[in-house]
């Protein structure tokens, strides 16, 4: 009875596009506490994005870029506005700015690019080329929850030829593009948070994608040493949010009358504020918030293979602290993860992780 899957009947019955099913956390997403128990590398409020170049590890937080080494941090650059994305190549670093545009420091292409891009969320910096992902064309990066609730899809992917300074739009209509990666054969892969998928830049708006129906909202992607990738997932989908995304009137009223911090939306951290929305399963039982309770915030990093298929994942579950993962990079056998909700950079030994996962 496939006719029941369309139109108002589907909306009434909750079928087809009105269905709010989300994938179970099984298989590659089987939960563990690896992220929650990971070693603290650096404490930094507002930590957001990691980047690697020439054996250096960089971190952006607030309006500063730090270099991290031996559990210590050192400021190497300060900008006028909050940094929303970070990339590094050779001796240069590129940062996206909340005030708009992308700035490159160091190297031969120093300067300000793409001033009309309001919401840079991820940058892929190469020798002579830079690719920038824009979350939405009318919102600041901090307003991502609004974009989700408005079901926004106004992001774009722009390529800049650094030699000539010419820019070219590779794709538009992205539902919060927030991660970029290049495959070994030169294809650009984009993560779209609100479509819960990774896709080839040429197929952004098409049904087909490399990795689809993720259980959370994917953001930045970085290469792994085995040819695969690390995917940061900054928030989890829940039935309630999926349901609210299909309830126009409630969303409209909520956006209008409720302060943003109290919206029914994923968050980077569970503040345990008594004014936050709560789901029934999150009621503390016998003094404990159960790890399987519906998450308001969650910590998740996914290891993808060379074909962008999930292999395994690292978790910080409900009730934990290391939530809101916005970035994860691999360097010298270590995985560095930003838990933005906790304001921490974590370090995990990869050989130990694989031992844990394989057993």
């Amino acid at each position: 009875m496939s006719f029941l899957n369309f139109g108002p009947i589907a909306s009434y019955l909750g079928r087809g596009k009105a269905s709010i099913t989300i994938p179970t956390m099984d298989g590659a997403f089987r939960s563990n506490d690896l992220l929650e128990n990971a070693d603290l590398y650096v404490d930094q409020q507002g930590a957001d994005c990691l980047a690697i170049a020439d054996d250096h590890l960089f971190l952006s937080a607030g309006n500063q870029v730090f270099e991290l080494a031996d559990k210590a941090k050192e400021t190497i650059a300060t900008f006028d506005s909050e940094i929303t994305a970070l990339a590094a190549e050779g001796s240069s670093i590129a940062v996206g700015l909340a005030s708009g545009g992308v700035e490159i420091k160091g190297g031969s292409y120093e300067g300000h690019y793409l001033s009309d891009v309001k919401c840079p969320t991820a940058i892929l910096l190469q020798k002579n080329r830079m690719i920038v992902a824009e979350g939405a064309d009318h919102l600041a990066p901090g307003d991502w929850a609004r974009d989700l609730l408005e079901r926004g899809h106004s992001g774009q992917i722009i390529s800049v030829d650094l030699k000539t300074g010419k820019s070219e739009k590779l794709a538009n209509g992205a539902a919060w593009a927030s991660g970029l990666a290049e495959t070994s054969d030169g294809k650009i892969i984009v993560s779209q948070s609100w479509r819960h998928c990774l896709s080839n830049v040429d197929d952004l708006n098409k049904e087909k994608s490399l990795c689809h129906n993720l259980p959370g909202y994917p953001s930045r992607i970085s290469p792994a040493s085995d040819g695969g990738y690390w995917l940061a997932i900054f928030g989890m989908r829940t039935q309630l949010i999926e349901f609210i995304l299909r309830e126009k009137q409630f969303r409209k009223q909520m956006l209008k009358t409720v302060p943003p911090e109290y919206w029914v939306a994923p968050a980077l951290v569970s503040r345990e504020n008594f004014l936050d929305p709560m789901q029934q399963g999150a009621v503390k039982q016998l003094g404990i918030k159960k790890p399987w309770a519906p998450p308001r915030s969650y910590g998740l990093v996914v290891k993808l293979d060379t074909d962008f298929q999930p292999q395994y994942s690292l978790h910080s579950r409900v009730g934990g602290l290391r939530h809101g993962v916005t970035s994860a990079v691999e360097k010298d056998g270590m995985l560095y993860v930003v838990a933005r909700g906790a304001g921490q950079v974590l370090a995990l030994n990869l050989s130990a992780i694989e031992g844990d996962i394989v057993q």
Partner: protein
Amino acid sequence: MASANAFTRARYKYFPDHLIGELLSKRWMESAVPTVILVGVFGYLSLNLPHYLSPINLMDLGRLYAEFGLVVLAMGLVMIGGGVDLSIGSMFALCNIAMLSLINMFGWPLWAAIPAVLVFGAALGAVNGFLIGYLKLRAFLTTLVTLIIYRAIVDIGLMNFAVEISGGFLESEAWDFIGDGDIFGIPSGLIAFLILAVIGHVMLSRTRPGWHVMAIGGARRSAHNAGIAVKRTICLTYVVSGVLTALAAVFFAARLGSAGSDVGSGMEVGVLTAAVLGGISLGGGRGSVAKAIMGGAIVLLVTNGMIRMGMEGGSSSLALGIILLFAVGIDVKWLKNRYKIINKVYVSPSYLELPDAPSPEKGSGTPYEVNDRLKTVTAIGLGTIEGPEDVILDHNDNLFAGTRHGDIIKFSGPNFETQETFAHIGGHPLGMAFDPDGNLLTCVGGMGLYGVKPSGEVYKLTDETNRTWYSINDDSRLRLADDLDITPDGQVYFSEATIRYEMHSWPLDSLEGRGNGRIICHDLNTNKTHTVIRDLIFPNGICTSFDGKSILFAETWGCSISRYWIDGPKRGKVEPVIPNLPGYPDNINRSSDGNYWLALVGMRTPTFDLAMTMPAFRRKMARRVAPDEWLFPNINSGCVIKFNEAGEILDVLWDLGGENHPMITSMREHKGHLYLGGISNNRVGRYKLENADPDWVGIDSYWGKKS
């Protein structure tokens, strides 16, 4: 927007959504559809057929119906027991021939012939019963075979003795009375049928054999495990079926005296249709005499009406077939989906617009501003007690708390380190209070109002109140008694949070936001119980005022405290005390300085308040989203408030983040300390109060100092 809200409000105020689910969950609702069909068919026929309502026609219909109805009863009984009897038509024909031959061929007197035929019918049924009950053959195939065999006997008998069987003519008034007689215009057969129907109804619904049949039809293996003689009972249903069929045949024989070969042929289809259409399930276990009566009447009226309207013989069978198909389809689908449908429509949220909450945030300047004074709470029985909703202390500093295991735990010793089970009640004890004799009275979720003597002996005070005549759900039984208090003259006032949900599904009531609860009064002197106030929004805490002239009560989802006057000039009136709290109030108790403590189990969130004004949204959520994922009042952190008679907030105690004592549902002051309970906690909290009377004991405030 304002007008849209007004419309929504009016729509949810005046249209009783919640009744739909309550109606559907009633068993008798299943007879509603057949009733409507019956009335429709009867109305149509009486309008379209001349003289349909004339006494003669009705009398004729009555005679036909008596015979048909008896057979439907027979079939219904077998079906309720989980079987089916297809041989009914052949048995009917065979008994008809038996009756006629006994009186015409052999000249037996009626007083001997009729019982003989009934025994004969019983024997025919016993054949089916033995094969199906004891040898466990399939009912369908077995009765199909006996159908053929009995029919063959009829044919052989008619071939050889047709003339003799129907040849004679019995001159007997009694025989004429059975065939054509009436009492006050009611045909003799119909009277017999009605008497048997009443007996059958009583048997099936009120006696052990009837329940056994129902149980076997519902779940054969469970019935066997429960010790019911399954084989014998099944066999007996077929025997009774045979007797009823034989009785119908007697009336038929008396009325027509004919032994045609088509008597009773095809009867099983009509009877089966009638039973299923009436609502007797093919799967067994569900059905009643009333359903058989209804189904029989519909099928008889339809078939008879079609003949009367001059339709050809075939079309009547065709109609019957279509009706049977339709009825079977409904039966199967309804049985399968009934609970799903009820689940979907039972939860019926209403419109609840609360005034803007006073902000408890730091710097807001309201009396509710957050602090972390409860940081110093120490835990009693941490990890050894589960779900102490309420706590209470006696003169000897013993602390009593209920648990979700259905116990009342007693903590004693200077630091409450000794722990023992004071009483086992069985349900989760919620609110507690001591009566003047030192008995501990408690509201037990799912059970009612109970008392525990100082010796630990448990006794029931009440588990019911007066039934509201207009309510669809039976509201006489207590579903969720919550908190109580006792007035000086021995009246126990207690709240019942909701009458629509059980103890384990109370969160559903938060989605409804309707006045589903009530306050009930139990008189300790007369042991009588009656409902005092209805339609309260999750009434919870109850506390008698210090002067004993009024009680204070909290409405949890309504976020308010009200006063009910039980004495004085305003007696019987309800007036608001705190109309708009920033959170969800739970228990209320007295404080040593003449004021009241109130527990806020959780705080109102902007999103949940918004959802409460969107009933359609919540209903959809209840249908679509798994319960664990529902938007819910935030009850992970709350606070304790002190207020005075006028409803002014005097003090607020917070445990920010709920680290130390998540969820506070109750607090009790005792000798300078405050003891905290929480319905999903694993501890009882103890907080040292500054400037509180170090000798104050709660019970004394009610019953005077113990001498």
